């Protein structure tokens, strides 16, 4: 985000929050998520849109969409990355069905109020403050940003760290709907993400139409998959997703001269590239065409798809890391969404 745009959006959110005495909070928090971020929310709308100004979307009423828009707008103004908007909207879907709920008498859960069912007795604010959607969203984001590594956490875990719900598993089912709603709102508000420019821009890791998406980033079966798998024929060229320097290129398994298997540990033939704060990693290659220390350009062939290492078939396992160093699980981010914000649509180019 450019400085002027950041200031403009910050000012808009400050105005939105000022009546509740939250202007200072908004300005203070504006840079909270900026450190180490290469993709930050940018391009504010002329004015934040709230309840009543949106049409119904999908299965959500105009009022519900309006509250989601407030949540997204506040998040953008605070500099929270897009994933935080999804976490917040999904949380509100579960907690209040995206309704700004007042006290429900003897049916109320303790003293929970508002979009996020925040409790005055737990330090979330006064009832009047919590019942202001912009304040409630700000309070949610403030606590989310304090969760270490929240951008690498599954939605359920990130939401639960903030909400401390009695039903921590309940947030997950809203991820798809929240993602779709955030997309609609972000598009409507022109809240594109402004990724750091790299020479030559960003590129697909495999030729368009040559692959299908198989195993996505995320948890399942009591394990966590830290990359996106792209199934493709053996020998399909693998491209660097951006210009950078190869920081590692070689075999990361006991053997890479034989086909991989579920019993073989490691990533097989692997390349790691430093794009200047963002890293990319490409696993299970059949062969490599680059070496450590080599400079590469966006789209340059760095190897070919194979099935070396811990693998059951020919595919590219792609990981995106930020910030780097280091290339660790803790810095891995969801590749499809991240590249989408950088202007590369892996899903759209799949066969």
């Amino acid at each position, binding site marked *: 985000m450019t400085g002027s745009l950041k200031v403009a959006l910050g000012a808009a959110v400050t105005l939105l929050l000022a009546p509740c005495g939250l202007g200072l909070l908004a300005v203070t928090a504006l840079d909270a998520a900026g450190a180490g971020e290469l993709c930050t929310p940018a391009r504010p709308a002329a004015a934040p849109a709230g309840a009543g100004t949106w049409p119904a979307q999908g299965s959500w009423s105009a009022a519900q969409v309006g509250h989601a828009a407030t949540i997204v707008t506040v998040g953008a103004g605070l500099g929270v990355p897009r994933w935080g908007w999804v976490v917040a909207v999904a949380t509100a879907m579960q907690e209040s069905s995206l309704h700004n709920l007042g006290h429900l008498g003897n049916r109320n859960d303790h003293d929970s109020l508002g979009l996020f069912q925040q409790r005055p007795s737990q330090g979330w604010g006064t009832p009047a*403050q919590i019942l202001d959607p912009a304040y409630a969203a700000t309070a949610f984001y403030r606590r989310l940003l304090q969760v270490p590594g929240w951008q690498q956490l599954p939605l359920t875990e990130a939401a639960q760290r903030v909400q401390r719900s*009695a039903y921590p*598993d309940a947030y997950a089912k809203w991820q798809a709907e929240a993602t779709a709603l955030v997309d609609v709102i972000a598009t409507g508000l022109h809240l594109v993400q402004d990724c750091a420019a790299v020479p030559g821009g960003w590129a697909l890791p495999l030729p368009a139409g040559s692959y299908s*998406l198989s195993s996505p980033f995320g948890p*399942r079966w009591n394990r966590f998959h830290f990359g996106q798998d792209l199934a493709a024929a053996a020998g399909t060229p693998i491209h660097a997703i951006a210009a950078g320097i190869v920081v590692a290129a070689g075999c990361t398994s006991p053997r890479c001269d034989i086909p991989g298997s579920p019993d073989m540990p490691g990533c097989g033939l692997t390349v790691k590239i430093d794009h200047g704060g963002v890293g990319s990693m490409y696993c299970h290659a059949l062969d490599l065409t680059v070496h450590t220390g080599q400079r590469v350009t966006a789209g340059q062939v760095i190897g070919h798809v194979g099935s070396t290492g811990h693998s059951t078939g020919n595919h590219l396992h792609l990981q995106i890391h930020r910030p780097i160093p280091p290339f660790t699980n803790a810095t891995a981010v969801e590749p499809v969404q991240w590249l989408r914000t950088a202007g590369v649509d892996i899903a759209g180019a799949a066969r």
Partner: protein
Amino acid sequence: MGIATLTRSAATNAAAAVAALVAAVGCAGPAVEAPPEPSPAASAPASPPAAPPPGVPGYRYEDPADVCHRFAAALFSADTTVDSGPADAPLRAAGYADAALAATLVRPTVDGRWPLWREHRARLHTQVSGHADSEAPVDSTVAAYRAMLVAATPVGDHGWRGWTQTTLLYCTLAHVTLAGVGAQWRMAGYTLAPLPGAP
């Protein structure tokens, strides 16, 4: 972006929240609005199942892939002209679950989409297909792992349609022996994840 693991449960605080008209309390922000009318199922939770877990009459539970498929279809089912509320779908899915998972599926459920669906007399049109996941663990005699791609679209009267929600459902199945019934493959847990790049 992360993907979250779900042992489906419902939030009683949210269930209570979708219940009553509320007083407007403002802070120069939008007024507090009336929540939608509660679904009967949300305000009147079903009784927990007795052991053994609920079953589907005549179904043999022999194929873990088919159990996973049927569970997915049940979980993503809805017909607002017939169902009492959004809690009915997990109740149907409980028929394919083991006792522990079934117990989590019969809690009250709130779904903020339900009022609009009911307004349009909508039902979910759901398609389920097998999904090959390269990271699936190897099956054993007591555990099996399957994945399904689920596409669910609410379709109502007069041509109304909501978004198609495309989701990956990862099934963990356990081979359990039920007294008087014998061995069956039952759902022991599941994880939901949006299909990458899906709208």
